[in-house]
């Protein structure tokens, strides 16, 4: 990935302040990120969540499945910083363990959808003809369904669970990646270096894999990063509707659903929601900065 940027946009800005001196860790970061306090905070937040997810077994004061029926539905206290749920489980611990699910699922959904999209969209763009038409018609068909409704039907058919929910998101999202990839491939195909490779006798497959594809990946990666937050939100929505993992597994969406029957015990639904909000917000800000940094042309999207 290129880290260098075309000159004019950044040249107009003031030079980096003296505080980001030679010894500062900030110098490792790209200048726009280092300059924007919001992006720094967001990056820190993502890092903090990732660390929390990794070290949940160490950080969590209680086991996420440990039930303390006597203290069920108790408000935040010294023992339970964020209170307990209807089965007496510690909300804070379940939130920390919930990060171990949400972050990988968000990433996995995007990677899978993107991968499938790149494969099919690339095939459509590169091979043209009937393959192109077929794939495009299928994407049209699938894009005609709002994500959640498609995901609902899939999980209702195949059963609830983490894999099926991720599968549902993948099935719902690959068409948009495919269309994008196809457009990019069509644009790149006309470029000179591709012509050159063909004249030099490279096989079509070689051209596809070594020349066309790499040129199209970077915008998709950028959009993918922006989508991770959205994937986390969608997975939480599916869990909320009961289409995700079973209820004892700590997952933020299903924790909110459980809290919905206990509106007076506000802590059960509020904290998982704040967790989702902070994580997704952080991802979105980081994604924004990444996009601004790597391809200002994409700022419109």
């Amino acid at each position, binding site marked *: 990935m290129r880290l260098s940027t075309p000159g004019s946009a950044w040249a107009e800005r003031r030079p980096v302040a003296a505080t980001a001196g030679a010894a500062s860790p900030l110098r490792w970061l790209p200048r726009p990120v280092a300059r924007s306090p*919001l992006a720094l905070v967001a990056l820190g937040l993502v890092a903090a969540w990732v660390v929390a997810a990794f070290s949940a077994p160490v950080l969590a004061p209680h086991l996420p499945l440990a039930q303390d029926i006597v203290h069920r539905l108790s408000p935040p206290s010294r023992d339970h910083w964020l209170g307990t749920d209807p089965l007496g489980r510690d909300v804070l611990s379940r939130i920390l363990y919930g990060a171990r699910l949400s972050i990988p699922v968000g990433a996995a959904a995007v990677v899978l959808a993107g991968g499938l999209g790149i494969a099919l969209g690339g095939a459509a763009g590169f091979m043209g003809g009937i393959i192109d038409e077929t794939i495009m*018609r299928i994407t*049209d*068909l699938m*894009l*005609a*369904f*709002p*994500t*959640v*409704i498609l995901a*609902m*039907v*899939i999980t*209702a*058919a*195949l*059963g609830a669970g983490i894999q099926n929910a991720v599968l549902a998101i993948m099935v719902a999202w690959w068409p948009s990646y495919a269309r994008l990839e196809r457009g990019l491939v069509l644009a790149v195909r006309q470029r000179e270096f591709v012509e050159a490779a063909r004249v030099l006798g490279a096989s079509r497959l070689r051209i596809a894999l070594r020349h066309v594809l790499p040129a199209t990946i970077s915008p998709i990666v950028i959009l993918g990063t922006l989508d991770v*937050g*959205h994937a986390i*939100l969608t997975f*939480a*929505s599916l869990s*909320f*509707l*009961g289409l995700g993992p079973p209820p004892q597994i700590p997952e933020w*969406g299903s924790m*909110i659903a459980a*809290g*919905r029957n206990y*509106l007076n015990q*506000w802590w059960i*639904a*509020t904290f*998982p*929601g704040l967790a*989702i*909000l902070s994580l*997704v*917000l952080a*991802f*979105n*800000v980081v994604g*924004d900065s990444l996009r601004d940094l790597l391809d200002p042309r994409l*700022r*419109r999207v």
Partner: protein
Amino acid sequence: MSLWRYLGRRVLLLAPMLVGITLLTFLLSHAVPADPVTAYLGPQASGDPQVIAAFRHRWGLDRPLPEQYGIYLWNLARGDMGVSISTRQPVMVDLKQHLPATIELATAAMLVSLLVSIPLGMLSAVRRDTMLDQLARIGSLIGVSTPIFWLGIVAIVLFYAYLGWAPSPGRLSMEIPPPPPVTGFVVVDAVLARRLDVAADALRHLALPALVLSSYSVGVVTRMMRGSMLEVLGEEYVRTARAKGLATWAVVVRHAARNSLIPVVTVIGLSFGGLLSGAVVTETVFAWPGLGSYAFHSATALDFPAIMGVGLVVATIYILVNLVVDIAYAFVDPRIRVG
């Protein structure tokens, strides 16, 4: 190609696409390992083979799958979408009861997002890097990052339970008899029936869910508008106009606004799908009897005719909206060639 050829081609593709959608939903809804028949009958009856046979025969479930699908398509061509197994009403009637509620909600949410986002985005771009801009940017980021179902729950607890500003979840207060359904939009029907108090009650019930549902699109459209506006403001001709001494607002209105609306039209179309998705959870949280909650109920109840009906309707609306957006896009920006 010309606009008419493009339009014609898209409309021609509509029919096969819809058939494709019915096939997709049929396959998905029948891929379930459970047999809904025994679930519908209750614990005592499902041990009785006579009862099961009678039920299956009544609903045509004892025929082979391809035949069931064929019968469905045949009836569909004559305008009959079958009878819902869980409401015992024709699916058409169910849809007629539920669809307007969702359209009302989605329209209100879209209105909110347009009324808020477009001016906010424009102002944010014009007054770039001011406090307003920073707040608008953070606000929109929060809007696209907040789970709608959680926001709805918080809103109900805060504005209904604690503050009492919002009415109870639902379309109308229970003690008010609904106006005679003409359009299905309660606000409109109430006005048509000259019951302004009912219309006011309906609007009060619509306010909170619409605001919650709009949170995501407000975020998206504001960012879009801001970005697009910034682009335009940076263009040569705008800078020239300002250099010549034209006031900022004159420049904005006459030149920048129209051009920056172009991508916004696309975004409106795209966010419509997001609104329909968001409607499922919003309707669930706010007890709004719309298509979203009907879809959820049918999917979990394995009500095949209902699932297929919902799939068709949703897909049709979505395709039509996309078509309209594409055409509007072509009109607004003559540089764009359709197809």
